[in-house]
Every structure is written in structure tokens, then in C-alpha cells.
């Protein structure tokens, strides 16, 4: 079954819309429904649509990193987000740290976002890896 022209031409747009939504969902996750897991799933859906319409090879090219490498990167980021905890000698691993730099407003920055980014990448990598290996070459 060959994908229709409409799907093929709109898939790139769909992908970037979904990625944008997924990043938004990832960022708002700490205070409203959302987070890394769901964000990763949304982004993976974008990649899946892209792969269905343009093929596995095109999706792999677009990703640049192999999905398995994305998984590894995600794990690395999540695991590393726990390391700044050791700046405080009393804190245990993965005790998150926060900074509130004043840039007009108080910008809340913390290692939880880094951790959630790790979750996002791992979920994206996992679903994409499974999906792309199911899609015909």
C-alpha cells in the first residue's frame, strides 16, 4: 500500500507540530498534566507518521541518531541529572537541585527538567526503535 500524496507531503509538518507539542508537554509537566513520558510518546507518534509516509530510511536519516543511541543518551542524561546532588554533601543521589535566576521574572531551573528530558529521550528512542524495526525496509 503506497501512502497518499496528502500524507506524504503533510508528514513533515505533522512531525514538527507533534514535536513542538511534545516539548510543550514536557516543559509544563512539572505543574500541569504532562511530562517526559507522555512527551516522548507524542514525539514518537510524530516519527511514526513520518516513517509510515516516507519510509524507514528517511525516518532514520531525519533522526540522525539511531533510536538505540537515543535510549542510551536518555539514560545517560537521566542518570547524570542526579549527580549535582553531590554538591551538597548531605544529599543522596537524585536529590534534585533548583536555581532561580532573576531574568525579569524568577526563572525556575532545576535538575528535574534534565531528568524528565532523559525520560523523554528514552521513551522516544524505545518506541521509535520498536516501530522502525517493524516497518518494512
Amino acid at each position, binding site marked *: *500500500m503506497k501512502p497518499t500524496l496528502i500524507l506524504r507531503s503533510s508528514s513533515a509538518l505533522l512531525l514538527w507540530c507533534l514535536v513542538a507539542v511534545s516539548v510543550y*508537554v514536557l516543559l509544563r*509537566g*512539572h*505543574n*500541569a*498534566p*504532562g*511530562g*517526559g*513520558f*507522555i512527551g516522548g*510518546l*507524542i514525539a*514518537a*507518534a510524530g516519527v*511514526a*507518521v513520518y*516513517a*509510515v509516509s516516507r519510509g524507514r530510511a528517511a525516518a532514520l536519516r531525519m533522526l540522525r541518531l*539511531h*533510536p*538505540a543511541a537515543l*535510549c*542510551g543518551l*536518555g*539514560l545517560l542524561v*537521566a*542518570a547524570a541529572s*542526579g549527580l549535582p546532588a553531590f554538591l551538597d554533601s548531605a544529599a543522596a*543521589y*537524585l536529590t*534534585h537541585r*533548583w536555581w532561580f535566576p532573576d531574568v525579569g521574572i524568577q526563572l*525556575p531551573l*532545576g535538575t*528535574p527538567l534534565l*531528568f*524528565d528530558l*532523559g*525520560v523523554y529521550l*528514552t*521513551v522516544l*528512542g*524505545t*518506541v521509535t*526503535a*520498536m*516501530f522502525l*524495526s*517493524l*516497518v518494512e525496509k
Partner: protein
Amino acid sequence: MITSVLLPIGLGAAATVAAMAMPPRLAMPFATMVAAAAFVLLLWAVPQVAGGAAITASFWGVPSLGITGGLSLDGLSLLFALLITGIGALVFLYAGSYLHDDPRRSRFAAIVLMFMTAMLGAVMADDVVTLFIFWELTSLASFFLVGFDHEKATARRAALQALLVTGGGGLALLAGLVLVAAAAGTTAISGIIAAREAVLAAPAAEAAMILVIIGCFAKSAQVPLHFWLPNAMAAPTPVSAYLHSATMVKLGVYLLARLNPVYLEHDLWQGVLTWFGLATALTGAFLALRETDLKRVLAYTTVTGLGTLVMLIGIPPALSATAAIVFLLVHAFYKAALFLVAGIVDHETGMRDASALGGLARVMPITALGAVLAALSMAGLPPFVGFVAKELVYEAKLESGDAAGLLVAGGFLVNAAMVAIAGVLSFRLFFARPRPTPKAPHDPGWAMMTGPLVLGILGLLAGGIPSLFGSWLVNPAAAALLGESVRVDLALWHGFSPLLVLSIATVAMGVGLYLAWERLGLVLRSLRQLDRFGPARAYDRVLGALVPAAARVTGMVQHGSLRDYLRTLFLVASLGALITLAFRGGISLPSVEAGWPDPRIFVPILLIAGAVAAVLARTLIAAIMASGLVGFATAVLFLVNGAPDLAFTQFAVETLFVVILAATLVRLPLRGRLPRSPRDRWIDASIAGCAGGAMTLLLLAVLATPFDPRLSVWFGAESVPAAHGRNVVNVILVDFRALDTLGEITVLALAAIAVLAVLRSIRGETRA
């Protein structure tokens, strides 16, 4: 002084890693230097340990499990540690030339360094758990090294056999050590020795003792578990010299000696060790006379040596401890030297059949010197330390009471055989009539000569001035064996005594055997019946039955039918839940308040409708759509019940599910009728009913349990002040329970990699 304990092990571990990354040219010299450095560090500790003070260090432990995890260097440990590092250095030096152009030198050096480190750890451990871990590590190293020439089927088979026998013994040992540690209330070896009354009084005391003995017997190749050792000669010769004669196979002897203070007055301990030891010594001597391959002859004489050691530990009086330690030293010296000589002969002539070699001294005078020095010690002739050992062993046997006659008679035969074999390995090989060889032999370079010469000269020195070794090494080690201090002055000359007569008779008998060696060997080899029985055959039988049985069981469990896998999974899970609920009184119903149904009731109705439709669906596409309805209804249920995050995730998963199906199932006959017979449908229906019933009962039971709000209240209260987040679910995931999440995404990533691997292998790809 703690550096003498920790530094050699740390050095060895670091060097193992370093050697792997090293170019082959540098690996062996590096390993030689590491072993030599460890030897010097340990030598540093000799004065203090000889003074009676053990050096202890504690480097890890699991207090919650009662594991102390200490290291301790006393006389016995030090003796072993010096042998391990000293012979290790000589073997590395030798192996550098022996494997001169071999590209696998880095790997060889790394594995042997790992082995050396593990041996050091095992003999220094003051904790049975630490000891066991290092013990198993030595078996692993032995496996890798026996199978070093892994292209050869015989090497692979021998490696597996060595691993299965010593590893199987390791399991028995583990069970025994657990029982002993439980009885003593501590895993510390010093603590176990201190609590010997409790260990001996425990209900399973004898079972524990036998299990430990089995483990040690397997490791130290005692009858009937001796058969793996000759086959392990498939390893490169430096490995045979190091692991399978001088060090690893003595680990079993070491542990028996280590635990001897606990059991030394136990009749069963004494009996088993004495008689199995003697049987092993005799079997080894007998089988050694049947062989002509240099390495196999040496392997069987090693079995003999190990048997003698075990027997000496079993014989009660104090002198046997000293005899055991002296013999241990002597054996390590001459056996390692002879193995290295055998390696040189093999290397230079291209053959190692003792019956077809002769007169090599003309072309290899220095090798001949090394061989003769070692062989004289092996034969127990003065002024070599072998003579001191043999006299001591005879004396210990004579003192052993009732069984003295039998022990001395057995020892006489064994020693005579050793004299004969020593003659074959030195005089016949080097001074008898020369015979043609495939290669033109000559003395190898100094690197290969150093080992045999140093060890041979040490044997001579130790015999000439026995007091040197006696007070520094032997007495402290013997003290550890007995649990009390020992003072035996070693001497070469005992005067004219029955012992001397016995020695002379032994040598005379040995010379007779030597002269008849060729004919005797022919007669012994013609006894083919011997090969048809025995433990090696039993091993083959068991393995021959085990492998097909395993294949059958695997075929039964891993049948490959996806539908049956699912059936089994659901059936086992639901029956497990049902049985637990029924027998543990878990079935209970929540109280329901009467009243108008909530308007939200339409969502579960949708859900049920989807489930019913999925069951009734006759085509695959209908079933998929119906189960999609169930999924979306579930998401709505989450949404209306105040779990937006869950709903969100559920929607995304359902959407992805649809996309994946669209991509992959387009090639399946979606419109066709499902190929299920009525019988299949009935089986599936009952399994589904079972699973649904179990889940319903489980959920009802959960609802009937009063809800404990403490955690949710705490999370709700702490979410903003402690974690700066208003979405409690997300805060729990990324902050409060972040470690759990990290574990979960690790599992996720592993699942992805597994899927990639499985699908790739189905498609027959090897690369992405």
C-alpha cells in the same frame, strides 16, 4: 603493613584491566613486573607474620547480611601468596617467550593476571563470602585458559569439563559454607574457628563438613573428581605450570588446611581426608605410569601430590601439619619447574612423548640442568628439600597410630613411582640414547630458562639450609593449620634411623621401576578395561543424558507458538491470583452505598460494550477496533475520575497503537475470518474468564481494604514546598521516586534493544 595486604590485590586488579588494552609486545613484560612487585610487597610482610601477628584489613562488607568481608594475612596465607606471585612472575617471564609471536598475548596476560589477583584474594580472605567469590573467579579464569585454543574441540571440551567439575564442587562448597557460617553466627573465618564448638554441635554439622570437602576435592582433583585435571592440560604449558600444578589446584588444599582447626579432632574429617588422600595419591601414581605424554604424566603426578597433601591434613598429630607445608613448598617448586621444562622440550623438539625422546642433554645442557635439579627434589634425594619433605611425610605417617602400616605402605609405593617418573623426566629424557625429533632442539633463551633454574636452585637451597624456610615460612603456616603455634626444626640429616632405611628402600624400588618403565607402561596401557569405567565415563554419561533432556524440556517450554505463550501467561497469573485469594482469605466485597448512579456511569458502559464487541468480533480488524474502544474508554475513565496524567498517557498509547497497527498489520488478512476452531474459542474463553474473574476479585478486595491516605497526603503537602511542582504525579516520578523511574526507563531501553536484536535475528541480519 596493611599495604602488603591491599596493594598486591589492588595492583593485580588494575593490571588486569591495563593488560587488556596493551599491545601484545608489552603485555607479558608488564605482567611479569606486576607479579614481581606483588611478590616483593608480600616479602615485606614476612618478618611480621613470622613473628606470629596476622595483618588484617577490612575493605568491604555487607553488615546487614552479617558479611564482614575482611582480609587477613597469616602464615598460611603468606606462604600461598608468595608462591602465587613468585611462580607467577617466573611463569609470565616464561610465557613471554613461549607465546613469542602469538597475537593473543594481551588477553593471556590479562586472564592470568585476573587469576593471580583472584588467588591472592582467595588465600587472604578472612571471610567465607569473599573467599567464595574469589574461589569461583579462579575457576572462571581456569575455564578461559584451558579453552585458550578455542578453535580446538578438545580444548573446549576440557575447559567445559574443568568448569563443570570445579563449578559443581563450588556449589557444594557454597552450601557447606552457608551452613558453617550460620552455625558459627559469622562469616569471618577467624570467627568460625573461634566458634568451633558451635559449628561442631550444629545439627547439620557433618553435612556442612562433607559439602565443604566435596568442594575442596573437586578443586584439588581428589578421587573420584580427579579426571578433569589431566584433560585441563589442553591449556598452554605456562598455564599448566601455574594454575594446574602450583596454585589453583592447591586452593582446595588451602581451604581444608584453613578449616582444619575447626574439624581437626573430628573422626570423619580425619578419615575422609586420610583415605581419600591416599587413594588419590595411589591412583595418580598408577595412572602416571600409564602415560607417555609429558604433560599428562606431570598432571597425574600432580594428582598424586595433591592426594598426599590432603592425606597429611587428615593425619592427626602435629608433625603432619609441618610435613604438609614442607611438601606443599617442595611440590610447588619441582612441579612448576618440570612443567616449564616439559614446555621447553615441547617447544624445542615439537613433540612431548616421553617414550620417543632421549639424549637431549647434548643439545640442551642448561635445560637438562634445570630438569635434573627439579627431578632430584621430586625423587626425594638429599640434599634437596624433597628429601626433607619425604622424611617428614614418612615420619608423620609412622606417628599416626593404628593406620601407620597401611599409610606407610601406600606412601612407599607412591614415592617409588615418583622416583621412577623423576628418572624418566630427567635421565631418560636428557641422557638416554638420542632419538630423532621433528625440530632441531637447542636451549631456549634466558627468559624460558629462568623459571626452571630458579625453582630448581630454590629446591636445593631449601634442602641445604632448611632452617631458613622453616622458621620464616613453614612454622607460621603450620601454626595456622593447627590453630596453635608450632616449632619444628627442619633438618636434612636425621642420623641413621628406620626413616633412612625406608628412604633407601624407596629409591631402590624407584630405580627398579625406572628400569622397567617402558615395559611396565606397555602392560598398564594394555589394560583397556580401565578406560571403560571410572568417573570420567560417568561424567560423559551424565552429560550425554543431560543435554538431550535439556533440549527436550526447552522444546516443550519454548515451543514457539505465540498464542500458547499468551495462554500460559494469563492462566498462570490468574490462577496464581485466584488460589492466593481463595486460600489466604482475600476475597471480600466493598460496601456499596445505595443511591442514584453517577452520570459518569456511561464510561464503564462504553468500556464493557467494547469488551463484548471484541469477544464477538469475527474479523481481526473488528477485534482491533473493539479493543481500541476499550482503551479509549479507559482513558476517559481516568479523565473523569481526576487522573489527567494517566488519561493523557493512555490516549497517547492508544494512538500509537493504532499507528503501529496501521503500519504493520496492513499485510495481514484483516478482513478474513479468524482461524480459530470452536475448541480453541472455548479454551480461550475459559482462560479469559479466569483472568477477568481474578482481576475483578483482586480489585474488589483492594477496594474493600480501608484506604491509607498518609502517603498521598504527604506527597500533596510536600510537592510544592519541597519540589517546586504542582503536578504531584510528575513530581513523584521525577523527584520523590526518581530512582524508581530511572530503573523503569532502563528496563524500557533494554526492552527496545531486545526487540531490535530479536527482529534482526528473525530477518537474518547481523548489522543495522
